[in-house]
């Protein structure tokens, strides 16, 4: 399986880490809009989340239900060790590259 991280995947993985204990489909959508200013559909988020889970970067468990969800439970996502390693690896890779750029005016 391909264990690389795509651009959107990376953003969403980071968002999951940002939101921490309350990361589920719709909260990720809201945070995405808030932090990037762009809109994203729920279904897109869902499929990215499931892809990340398949790759082992996040894990999930069913959480609590709320009134506005019509009594349906949330699937709460959490970054796994592998996930954290992957984003930090990516970050350090990028930083190395940044450092190699002579100057940026």
């Amino acid at each position, binding site marked *: 399986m391909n264990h690389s991280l795509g651009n959107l995947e990376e953003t969403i993985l980071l968002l999951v880490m940002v939101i921490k204990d309350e990361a589920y489909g719709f909260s990720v959508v809201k945070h995405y809009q808030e932090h990037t200013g762009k809109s994203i559909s729920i279904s897109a988020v*869902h499929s990215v989340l499931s892809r990340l889970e398949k790759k082992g970067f996040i894990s999930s468990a069913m959480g609590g239900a709320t009134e*506005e969800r019509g009594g*349906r439970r*949330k699937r709460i996502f959490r970054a796994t060790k592998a996930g954290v390693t992957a984003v930090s690896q990516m970050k350090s890779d990028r930083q190395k590259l940044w450092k190699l750029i002579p100057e940026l005016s």
Partner: protein
Amino acid sequence: MTQLYNRTKPPQWADKFLRWYCSAELLEEIQGDLYEAFDYRTKHIGAKKARWHFVLDVFKFFRPYSFKRTRVKNLNNLAMIKNYFKVAYRNLRKDYFYSSINVFGLAIGIAITLLIARFIQYELSFDKFHTNYENTYRIIRDRKVNDFETGTNTASPYLIGELAKTDMPDVVFGRIAPHSGLTVAAEKKFVENDILMVDENIFKIFDFEFVAGNPANDFHQPNLAILTKDIATKYFEEEDPIGKFISVRDQTYSVVGIVKRMPQNSHFHFDFLLSFETNRKFRSASSFEHPGNLWMYTYAMAPEGFGAEEIDYNLSKVYEKWAGDNPFAKNTTYYTQPLADIHLKTKTDGGDIGTNGSLLIVQGSAVSALIILLIACFNFMNLATARSTKKVKEVSVRKAVGAYRKNLIVQFLLESVLVTALACVIAVALAQLIAPFFNKVLGRELPLGFSNLQTELFWIVAGGAVISLLAGSYPAIYLSRFSPSSLMTSHGGKSAGMSAAIVRKGLVILQFTASIILIAATLIIYKQLNFIQAKELGFNKENVLVLSITNSQASEKKQFLKNEISRLPNVISTSLASNVPGDGLNSWRVESLDPDKKAQTSLHVMVFDYDYLQTLNLDLVAGRNFSRDFASDSLEAILLNQSAVELLGLEDPIGAEFSLNGQNEVKVIGVVKDFHSGSLYEEINPLLFKMEDSWYWKVTARVEPGNLQETIASIEKIWKGQVSDWPFNISFLDDRLARQYESDIRLGQSFVYFSVLAIFIACLGLFGLSSFATEQRFKEIGIRKALGAGTGDILPLIFKQFAVLLLISFLLAIPASWYMMDTWLQNFVFHAEIGPMIFVMAGILSILVAAITIGYHSMRAARANPVDSLRYE
């Protein structure tokens, strides 16, 4: 109120759609997110937009990611399939009663379908073995006299082919003329009937297989003969026949080739082929000129790109030129009939070169086969679902252990495949067994066994697959639906059982509707056949012998033959005539000589002598018969029938004067009461009767009933003494008339068998179902009996269940069969009324049979000792 409702809830249909496609594992989180988003958006951007977004999101989720699926892969497929077979086999054995009903019913259905398929395939294969069959046609003609269709002639005169040939040089025209007579060769003498005189083009149009010699190109010469192998042996035995001479009716032919017989599925057959040119040596000049002299069949083979319409168009123009101003020409149309249509689509009352088939029978048997097969399939479905209570356990356990619905469907389908396969094997054996009988019913000599092993096997396997899918898919889908919990809760299983019970009832209704339709159809066919048999035709058709004298030798001696026959002890009366009822008729032009009435028309003509009215027991309503006392009668007198008097508008017919064909001037001397000169398919034709010595082709004789064989033998003796060279051709008038309805009679006969089979298979299913129904209520019946119910109280319990179904089928069958059979009856101008009795009889018959079927189990259950059903527990 509704607005508030709408505002707080997302669109229901979209939500439903989501639930439908979304897999169960994902539904909760997706739906939750969508609800939450809806709630959030309602607050922030308004209800309307929120609803819109909800719908949009539902559709965005509609992708493989969220679809229902079973994710587990079955790693142990082979072992499972083995297990399926084992369980299927055990199920079959355990319920051998139901299994044998299934297998046996299906086997009968498949066997009948197989036989009928063979029959239809055979009927459709006629003349298609010729290489050029697709662009080969026969030239036939339709005639109309006074708007009375006088039917189609498949034979044609010499000139039409001759004229067409010059007009269409690209088209190959060929002729076949049937011939017969005393044949002599190598000191052997036989009267031969199957002789065809053909021209050289016939060998280009049709495919012949020569065994020796290839004289096709020489056949424009006269006096050549080609024999079939059997005939060569018959006359010449072991000697080489090529170069030998054979004489037919005093013409000598030299044998130039040996050819194979035509295959069975050819519309013409022969023992001899003689060269057509020889006809010129013994036929009169008028045979080659007169447009009414139809003694040959003309075939045309069009080159590539030359359509039938083009030939038809050219034919009509050629004919127009030929006929000129002759008003009769307008009555006749020549046109092409595709070669492949000859066998099933020829409609003629004038006879044909061979015996044709009947499209009616092909269609009727196809429909019957389908009905019988469907009834058998329904049995399978019904018995499978009826036993669902037993299957519930198996399904539940399998599901609890981890089987998916898909697996169960496969398993049940395998079971039906197994049953069908078994049925197919039995069906093939059964088909072989009943094939001879079947052939007799349909009047065909189909080859026993496989005509083409590979194709037939392919169709059996393909058909079996379709049947097992058809019969097995519903039970498979239905049975695999049970959830494991339905085993524990009685409620779950019951509600599922209800829907199946409705389907089951529906199928039983369909089965019996179909059966009753077939029974009613059979009864109606027989009612019509009886009607035909009993119909007052206006003459007495019983005990009339008809002797054909269609040859010159006999024709010269016809008066002598008549006198000799009339002297026989059992002969009451004899007469000479051109036609008897049932024959096709000629027509003459009739012009009134009354200057006030310039009436001109055409009338059908029957020519006969003084004694015809007496011989056939025809009645005169006015005037007098031809009489020997008036010498002029033989030339100047005519009779008319009532319809003709009406058509000509004669108020006082006796003494009215006409000219015939613009030549003879004649006077009406009497009026004959209307009689059916044609079949009951047609109206009574206006007829003209005259004496005409050269037109007598038949001797008719009314004989005493009893000693018929003796009488015929004495007539044959007279014939042999006078006309040794010609076949003796005698028949009974009533047989000749019955032959008009041959395909209807055969349809009736085959429908008897088809409807018996249909009701039998339907009852097989009913037998199984009623056994099941009583089994289910065994305890109930036991308790009722223990509480004092008698047999008479128990029986209605069971009967009631099925009586309603039968009643509904009966009601459904009435309009269906009425419509179907009314269409058929419309073929006859004179036909029986369908009437309510038919349906009452069909209903009583089927309900009686069904009652006996159900009765067996019901009686057993009602009579059983309650102890047996209540003891354990």
